[in-house]
């Protein structure tokens, strides 16, 4: 329908500041606003847990093993008689960190390498992509374990380990995007007026990758949360008795038939968290999209 163009210029002036765009988004896009509130609430609830939760997350109680949800234990108790709700709230601390920090780290690294690879081409491209191939071909869990062990365990080592295994996917996607964008006329136009290569990479190519980055980000979060659970299970993640949502799903899935609430609660928690980020991501993408400013 090339013949049909409604898009005549409209009389509005815009502030180009990103923060204003984002505030605008929260005002207009209700889903994003609600999502942001959910994320903030989960984080706040986790941080303030000792102030309002009456149980100790690590206190065993043989009497209450596998207790069903009740007024006393809203989400029941686990195989060691620990209050499930309390553990869920405490587990959020690690899961949110694991969901966000390694994902962000790996995306920063992956984006930079992908941009460099796609824009520079030639040798640089060759070596970065071979490194990415190695990472992608290697069983990621094994690689994460190796990195994690080498760094001596603990939460920091998990961050690094999870970043090390997931940058390659981002780099691949961004490289492809950069390769197609660098052929665009507006990039040639920038080169023709004498704009330097780093400026072209970060001012022209990167902003046009934003929609992909946001999709990748929201796709990577659940992966990171679940990967962490495997690491924990293998003894290099969250050290027992502390817990995370991923680890809870992993442990309690054995009881899925007999005591389903145990695995369902953390599963639903992950779902809500990831969904909230998805909606938030959509909102951010639209807010930064010049085409949506009408």
């Amino acid at each position, binding site marked *: *329908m090339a*013949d049909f163009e*409604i898009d*005549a210029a409209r009389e509005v002036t815009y502030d180009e500041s990103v923060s204003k765009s984002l505030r605008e988004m929260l005002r207009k896009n209700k889903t994003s606003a609600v999502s942001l509130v959910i994320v903030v609430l989960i984080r706040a609830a986790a941080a303030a847990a000792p102030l309002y939760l009456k149980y100790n997350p690590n206190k065993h109680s043989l009497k209450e093993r596998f207790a069903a949800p009740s007024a006393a234990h809203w989400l029941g108790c686990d195989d060691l008689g620990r209050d499930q709700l309390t553990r869920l709230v405490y587990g959020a601390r690690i899961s949110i960190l694991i969901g966000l920090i390694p994902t962000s780290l790996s995306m920063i690294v992956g984006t930079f390498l992908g941009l460099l690879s796609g824009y520079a081409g030639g040798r640089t491209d060759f070596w970065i992509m071979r490194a990415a191939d190695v990472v992608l071909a290697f069983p990621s869990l094994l690689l994460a374990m190796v990195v994690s062990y080498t760094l001596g365990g603990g939460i920091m080592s998990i961050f690094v380990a999870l970043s090390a295994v997931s940058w390659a996917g981002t780099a691949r996607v961004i490289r492809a995007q950069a390769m197609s964008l660098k052929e665009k006329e507006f990039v040639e136009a920038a080169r023709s007026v004498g704009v330097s290569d780093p400026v072209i990479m970060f001012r022209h190519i990167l902003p046009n990758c934003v929609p992909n980055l946001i999709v990748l980000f929201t796709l990577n979060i659940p992966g990171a949360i679940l990967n962490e659970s495997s690491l924990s299970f293998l003894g290099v993640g969250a050290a027992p008795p502390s817990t995370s949502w991923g680890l809870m799903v992993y442990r309690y899935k054995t009881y899925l038939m007999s005591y389903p609430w145990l695995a369902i609660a953390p599963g639903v928690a992950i779902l809500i968290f990831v969904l909230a980020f998805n909606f938030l991501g959509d909102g951010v993408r639209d807010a930064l999209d010049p085409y949506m400013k009408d």
Partner: protein
Amino acid sequence: MLEIERLRTHFFTSRGVAPAVDDVTITIPPKSIVGVVGESGCGKSVTALSVLRLVSSPGRIVSGSIRLDGEELLTKSGSAMRAIRGDRISMIFQEPMTSLNPVYTVGRQVSEAITLHRNVSRAEARDGTVEMFRAVGIPEPEKRFKSYPHQLSGGLRQRVMIAMAMACRPELLIADEPTTALDVTTEAQILRLMKELETAFGASIMLITHNLGVVAEMCDYVYVMYAGRIMEQAGVFELFDNALHPYTSGLLGAIPRPGGGRRRLFNIEGMVPSLLGLPRGCRFSPRCERAVSRCHEEEPELRGVAGEHSVRCFLYGGEGGAVS
């Protein structure tokens, strides 16, 4: 043969209703080439798609009548319409690369168009295709039968498209900017081919274009569209010799012409209005140099001035309404 009567095709967007085609009446007599000219957004392509009932959402044919040899097309069922497309009416598009499927040979694609509408064997369809390739001037038709679209030049691809469109000997060929993507010398070849096919097969052609040069070379009768409306219609000689509507004469004045030297080209100020915010009165009035106050208030009717020449302008024709 084809009669489009008071056709309205509107687009129902989230920002309002856009009347892309608004009360358009076009008649295409047998064995003639009728041009529909206008700039982008004037509704000429949507008119063509409406004839084939291929307007896609959010667009919808709101009212009007489209008759092929007296048969109403707008009330036909989906399958009856499919049987007509490619058989009695076919269409060629601007970009021959994107209208051919890159994973099949061109021969197969044209044969399929034939077997779809004719009860023939594959061998017969193949022969028909090769014959058609020859008719549209494709060199070495047997060899080209096995070519993939990317192996052909733009001109050859457009010939393949024409072969596909003509394969079932349609009564009407709709050509939407058929030469816009081609080079001048190839354009001249394709235009000549279309003229020859018109004579040889007795098909009528509805030629949609923005290029007045192409219109002058090809058409018998011309409709000038602007913002969903027909502004002027006339025989081709009459239109070029005696263009009445300020828009038509503006378009003609905007073409650089031999002998004109470096004189300034005629400027039609401003730009095509958004279909969502059409001006009051005559749709061309905000850009019209000769607009009077009445033009901004009410919209003129399309009125006959002489013979087959009609114009939608208060300056001319009927009702003693000439304001000069």
